[in-house]
Every structure is written in C-alpha cells, then in structure tokens.
C-alpha cells in the first residue's frame, strides 16, 4: 500500500505524481470548485464512486515499474527516529465560573442574532454573530433549569505556537515537560512546522485540548470559528465551516453538532451541555440514590436525579460538517472531554463506598490527572515538505503511514511503578487498531466508549478499536523494574480504508512483518521511578452495571442496513449528498445516500426500541455511531453469546465487523430534536453513510420533525423536512 522508503526513485516519484493529482481533486472538492458529479463527468471518478482506474491517479493501479499497485508515497521522516520525543499530555481548557457574566457577549437561550459585517468573500452584508439557528426551536432546551455554571471557550484556528499549555499536572507526570513554554505545531521537534492553514485545531495549537466536566454542573462551550473566510485558504483540504459534535452527549439536539447546523468564520456557536444522568426526568427524580451523584468540591457527594447506571466518563468532541467531517477532524478538529461523577470522580483516595477509586490522583476533589491519561491515536501523512496531506484516493477511507499519539509522532511517555488509567480514543479517519503491549503482558479494560463496563476485563490483546471508539484501560507498571521500556503495539494491518485485512501476531508485528507502516510499536512507556506515595487506586470487580431494561416494553424494532450503491432521490443542493455511493437502507427500503433534510426514523420520546444494524457486505467494516443515547448490544450475529465481555456495557459506536449484524436496545429520554446515525469511518460518513433521526411525539416544540436549518453567512433559513414513510 505504502511505497517502501527504500523503493527506487522512479517508483517513489510515480507515487508522488499520483498523490499530487489526487491532491488537486481534494483541493477542488474541499473548496467547492467542483462536485463529485463533475468529477464523474470528467472521468476522474467511476459511477460506483471509486477513483478512476487511471495510472498516475489511482494508487491501486499497477506501477509502471513493478507488477504491484502504484501505492502511496511514504511520509518522509527527516531523520527522525521513533520514541525520541515525549508525549505531551492534553492541554486542559480553562474552566470559567459564571459564564453568564464572564463571557462576552452574554450567552443567551435563543441564538444571538446581533448583526455583524460579513466579509465580501462570504457574500458581504451582515449576519448574526452566533451561527446557531435562530428562534425558539433551536433555543437551548430547559435553559433556565440548567443555567450554565461553567464556561469554556475555544477558537478554531490555523496552526500556531502554544504559549499557554496547561496539562494540569506537574512536569514529572508529563515526561518532564512543564506547563507554559512555547510549543510549535510539529509532529516531532525534528519535523517541519505545520503551515497555518495545514492544521486547524482548537486554539490552533497542540497538544489536543481536554475539557473537564462533572455531573450536575451545566457547561457552556463557546466555540469560535476563527478559520479563514476565504474557502480556498485551506492548503488543499478542510472546509472552513464547522459544527461541533459532543460525542456522545446526552443533550438537546441544538447542542449536538448537527451536521447541517454549521457556522461560519467570524461566528461563534454556544453549545449548552447540561451533563445530566439519562433518566433525569423519570428515574430517581428526588435525587435520593447515593450512587447518583457528583463531587461536591470538598470530598463529598451532591446527589442528582437520574439513573446512576447511565453515568458516562470519556467523551470527545469533533467536527461534524456535512460531507467534510473526515477532512476537518483529520486537520485537527478533535478534543476529549472527561466527565466526573461520584462513582468515577478522578480521585483515588476518597473512600466513601461510592467512588470506584480508579487510578487518577489525590490532590483535588475530582478530576486528578496524574495517573489518568488521555491518548488520542491518529494516523497522519505528509508530503516531501513535511506538510500534512489528505489523500482522497477513493471513498473507502483514508490511511496515514505515521501513527501519532496526542498529535506526536511515535512518542514516549514516562511512568511510575504503579497503576495508570489510559483513556484511548481512536481519532483516525479509517484506521482500526488492535493494541497489545510489546511484552504481551495484560491490560485491564474498564471502559468502552463513554462508559465504564459492568466488570473489568483482563486482556493481552485488545479487540479492534474502531474509529471514534474509546477504550479505557488500566496498566499496572508496578510489575516492571525501573528502567524498563515497554511499548503499545498495533497488530491490525490495513491494505485499504475499508477494513482490517490481517491481524498479526505480536511476534510478527514486532518483527516488522507488515507492509503497513501503521503496524508495530507506536507509544513507548518508560518506567522511571517509584511513586512518591503508595498506589491506593483500585480496579473493583464491579464497575457500573447496565440499566435493567427488562421491564420496559419495546415499542418498535427497526432495521438499518449499511452498504454500497446508494441512490439519492433528493436534488436539494444543500441538504443532499448528490452521489455518495455509501448509504443506509432503513426498514428494507432503498439504500439512500445522506440528506440531512430527510428524517429516516422517528422514535417516540420516553420509549424503548430495538434496532438491528446490519453490514450489507463482507468487504468492509463500519463503526456505526448513534447520537444522543447509549445502547446495549443484545445480540451479535443472532446471539448474545457472540457479544464479548468488553462489549457488554453501554456503547455509542457499534463495530459491525465484515458481514456482521448486531441488535441493540435504546431509550429516548430527557431531550428532543434531530440527531444522526452514521458510519464513523468518516470517509464513509461523508460519502454519504449518514441519516437523520428525530424524536417525535407529534406536537411538543422539540418532539416533532423540525424544520431543517440551512445556514448562510447572512443567517440561517429553514425548510420543511421530508420524512420516510417507514420513519
């Protein structure tokens, strides 16, 4: 797939020519200069959506110099060796108390439509300062009941130095790297600095950002769009309009980052995250259950309504721009969000009978990060100049050949001889990982997606972690002597973006027996000292049991099939993807490409349903994400026995596996509005394996099919949705 670094110059040049040609297509698409339909007419894409079978374009066409595919040029390393830079921990976003008075302009229930000038390149005139759709339908639900107590602000910006880095741990817990400093945007100190419009991140800096929240403390996240107003200023990929999805927030739809609710450069969008336990309005409404609680700031618990079995812990947030999510997330629009609760409070010393005392730290009441480490995996690629590239070689997925952790190329991380919790996020576009330690020693998986498992699972090789999935694991480094080095290793080999082609043995992965540069060691742990205080953290035998749904009737079952050959009945130039070949078949109907103006399912508020998610083929895998509500997997391929222990908790991303089928159960509670279901291989999602579903009770303001937002720089309009007959 990737041309070996020791290949002949002719082969390397040939692959580079192909990539340059593909980059032209990517640039034209990202800047809206052509549509995929235009590319079809020009013979650059086939009717089935694949890149035309042309030499000098398609990397799978045979090389002129070998009877193997042309391949992709490798990313030059400029002499950089693996494990020669420290992994920087996430950069914690400041928490601002009393955002209603601290933020300017003051956050409002309905979108702030104060007018401001719009740049000529965006059509001129004036437009609202906030990009959220206006009016009561997109007002923050239950605003006065959950007035934000904490504010956070970030601006999406082009690459720049980080002069305000704050990992919220002392340098000895960050491989010697202190807060502050002046961190250039490089994947390694020996690699070139990324140009301003090559990488777009939160605040324009690395490492990635971490939001800290706790239950019962409503947050307001103000996201400013500071990207160039000129759509062509993107260095070849990325769309300057964004919509920020809090994955998998249990919030009103206006705060979900709906794919069609994007906002423009120069605007902001206020996302209101109340952070309530699911079942807030129906279970434990008097807040008497001691396990349904949140840290009170002084070692105690403030009880809150809702079902404690719905407690969530590890989220992330990222762009969800219609048809451009893959480019934008790859470009840097990805951050993590740790949510703390009485049961998972991020303090390993408080022994109150509720706190699980998972590895974290002890200095603060909640949210200690010393031994609780976020890891974001993402494969990247760059050209000969070292600038990151996005290679839309086809619509099956994008693979990079350089695995980064927290946007650092193959770093090391210093640890003490004790237990650590790692919150692993697969932030890639299409790559799956299968993680082992280089010595084969065990890891304990405690969480899957946002949720702690009912019980920990000890594994020596983790299951595939699909795109957007999160695995929380505990590694006990007390078994190692000081001076030991042990690495995380990826065993999953890709030949393309469709699926894992081959899981290697650990021995083969370590021996380099793969043509996929994404296989092998990617993060090295260095055991550097004993802990200053005894490790009192625990991994209890019981974590968070699943909510018992057995007494709740299932009001409807639905079938969704994910496959190729999608059609697009809509000609709407804004809401409908015109020719994405990936699609979703609802209830046995047509395989449809995405149209965010079309409602494909309308579950009733407060009810429980069972959904079957079927992979329509064996040549690909799909990690399917359902917004808003966690689900439980009832069956894999027809049987609960096929659901492994690490998938028996609540989830929000469901890997179907090739040719596979799963049955899940969901409830629809507390909030309303329009949500999505889609493949989180974001290239599949963009082309166009995504549907809109909506909570419906036939009348209440948020509980009926709502008008579809149509954003423009001058303001957001609306149009009536279409609704599938089977919805």
């Amino acid at each position, binding site marked *: 797939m990737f041309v070996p670094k020791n290949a002949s110059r002719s082969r390397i040049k040939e692959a580079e020519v192909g990539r340059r040609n593909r980059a032209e297509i990517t640039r034209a698409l990202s800047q809206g200069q052509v549509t995929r339909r235009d590319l079809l007419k020009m013979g650059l894409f086939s009717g089935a959506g694949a890149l035309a079978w042309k030499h000098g374009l398609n990397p799978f066409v045979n090389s002129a110099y070998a009877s193997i595919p042309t391949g992709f040029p490798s990313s030059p390393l400029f002499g950089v060796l693996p494990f020669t830079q420290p992994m920087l921990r996430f950069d914690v976003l400041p928490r601002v108390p009393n955002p209603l008075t601290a933020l300017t302009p003051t956050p409002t229930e309905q979108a702030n439509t104060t007018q401001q000038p719009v740049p000529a390149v965006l059509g001129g005139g004036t437009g609202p300062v906030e990009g959220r759709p206006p009016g009561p339908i997109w007002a923050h639900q239950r605003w006065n009941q959950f007035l934000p107590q904490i504010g956070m602000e970030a601006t999406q910006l082009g690459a720049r130095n980080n002069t305000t880095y704050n990992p919220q741990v002392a340098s000895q817990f960050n491989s010697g790297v202190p807060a502050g400093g002046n961190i250039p945007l490089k994947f390694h100190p020996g690699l070139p600095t990324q140009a301003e419009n090559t990488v777009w991140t939160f605040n324009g800096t690395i490492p990635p950002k971490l939001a800290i929240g706790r239950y019962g403390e409503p947050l307001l996240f103000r996201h400013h769009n500071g990207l160039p107003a000129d759509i062509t200023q993107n260095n070849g990929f990325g769309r300057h309009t964004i919509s920020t999805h809090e994955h998998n927030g249990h919030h009103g739809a206006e705060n979900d980052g709906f794919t069609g609710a994007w906002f423009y450069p120069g605007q902001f969008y206020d996302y209101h995250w109340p952070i309530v336990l699911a079942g807030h309005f129906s279970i434990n409404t008097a807040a008497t259950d001691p396990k349904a609680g949140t840290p009170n700031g002084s070692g105690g618990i403030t009880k809150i309504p809702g079902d404690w079995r719905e407690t969530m812990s590890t989220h992330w947030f990222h762009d969800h721009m219609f048809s451009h999510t893959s480019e934008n997330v790859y470009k840097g629009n990805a951050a993590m969000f740790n949510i703390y609760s009485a049961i998972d409070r991020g303090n390993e010393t408080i022994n109150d009978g509720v706190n699980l005392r998972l590895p974290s730290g002890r200095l603060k009441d909640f949210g200690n990060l010393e031994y609780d480490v976020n890891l974001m995996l993402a494969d990247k690629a760059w050209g000969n100049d070292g600038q990151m590239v996005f290679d839309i070689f086809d619509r099956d997925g994008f693979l990079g050949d350089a695995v980064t952790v927290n946007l650092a190329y193959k770093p090391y991380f210093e640890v003490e001889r004790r237990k650590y919790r790692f919150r692993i996020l697969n932030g890639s576009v299409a790559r799956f990982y299968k993680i082992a330690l280089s010595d084969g020693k065990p890891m304990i998986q405690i969480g899957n997606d946002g949720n702690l498992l009912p019980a920990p699972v*000890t594994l*020596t090789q983790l299951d595939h972690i699909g795109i957007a999935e999160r695995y929380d694991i505990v590694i006990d480094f007390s078994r190692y002597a000081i001076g030991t080095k042990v690495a995380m290793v990826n065993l999953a080999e890709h030949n393309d973006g469709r699926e894992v082609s081959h899981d290697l043995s650990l021995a*083969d992965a370590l021996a380099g027996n793969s043509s996929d540069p994404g296989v092998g060691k990617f993060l090295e742990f260095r055991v550097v000292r004993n802990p200053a205080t005894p490790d009192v953290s625990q991994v209890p035998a019981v974590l968070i049991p699943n909510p018992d749904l057995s007494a709740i009737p299932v009001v409807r079952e639905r079938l969704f099939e994910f496959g190729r050959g999608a059609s697009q009945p809509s000609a709407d130039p804004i809401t409908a993807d015109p020719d994405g070949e990936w699609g979703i078949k609802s209830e046995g109907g047509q395989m449809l490409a995405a149209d965010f103006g079309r409602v494909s399912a309308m579950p009733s508020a407060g009810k429980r349903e069972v959904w079957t998610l079927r992979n329509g083929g064996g040549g690909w895998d799909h990690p399917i994400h359902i917004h808003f509500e966690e689900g439980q997997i009832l069956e894999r391929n027809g049987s609960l026995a096929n659901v492994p222990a690490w998938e028996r908790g609540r989830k929000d991303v469901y890997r179907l596996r090739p040719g596979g089928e799963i049955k899940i159960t969901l409830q629809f509670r507390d909030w309303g509005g329009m949500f999505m279901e889609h493949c989180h291989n974001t290239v599949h999602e963009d082309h166009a394996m995504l549907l809109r579903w909506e909570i419906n009770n036939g009348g209440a303001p948020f509980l009926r099919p709502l008008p579809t937002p149509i954003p423009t720089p001058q303001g957001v309009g609306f149009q009536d949705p279409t609704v599938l007959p089977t919805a």
Partner: protein
Amino acid sequence: MKTTNILKPLVLSLAVAAAVAALPAAHAQTATQSAAPVSSSAATASSTAAAPSATSLVKVRGFVTGSPETVGFTGTAVVNSQLANDPDFNLPQLIFTLDMSGVSGFGSQSHAQYVITGPEIIQRRLAPSHAVEITFPFVVSGGSPLATQTGVASFAIDVDQNTGYITQASGSVSTPNF
C-alpha cells in the same frame, strides 16, 4: 460553477501517465509479509479433522514457564470461523473467534488451578490455511486480575474456501518470548 478549467491540467497529465503505465515493469519491488509463528517451547499439539464446521473443538496442551511457577495447560479450545463474503471486491474475510476458556492450567509447585479468560477475535483474508498465534491471559482461579500472566497459543487452521468452515485445526500453548 467553473468546472471545466480547474482540473484540465490534471486530466491531460493523466493521459500521459496512462501511457507511462503501459511500459514494462523495470524495477520490481515487493513487500514482504510473514505469518510464521514464533518457536514454541515444551508444547504439544493435536489436530481435529472432523466434518467441516464453523466451530471446531481443538485439544490444546503446553506449558508456560516463568515466575512464580511453570503452568501446564490442557483442555479444549473452541475455534469458530466465520466467512464474510465480498461480492464487491472479491476479498472475503474470515473472522476467527478463539475461546480458550475451556483450557485450564495447573501450577507445577502450587498445584493451583489457573483459568484463561477471553475470547480472542482475529480477522484475516480468506485463505486455505492460517497460522494464528495469539497471546492469552491466565490467572489463578479466583485471583486478582492484577496477578494475570500471559501465555501464547498457536493454532494451525485449515478452512473450506467456499464456506469458511474449519476442515482441520490444531493448537498448542507455549511460553511468550517477546
């Protein structure tokens, strides 16, 4: 929307590239890939050759040497093979599920029973024969997960190309050597 001129140079260059592609291969290079298992120590294997089936019961034996003691393993692993056909790209996949929970260990000094948790799920392109080597966790029955150790299990699995059913399988346990 101006679409005709934007990518015109690209379309022209591709015509040239297509001509280059017609040249004979001059500098053939191939990537190597191996699935050979590491050598196992003190391991024995047995095979099953019953009627082809999606699930095969594989007798497994072997030792894992190390601290605090050598553990001998014996029992039956359940190996399942699921074929995922691929009419679009003709690259069918096999998904192997290897459940070692029916294999138990016996401590050479403590005489304690060791249990294995799992399963392990492995994805491969369809081929007639597969050498599948996995690591597996084992721990004294009722013991703390923090005391879990690691063994290696190696399987040789033959499958029917049409159904993905297992036609023959054997397995063994050995000591990790990473």
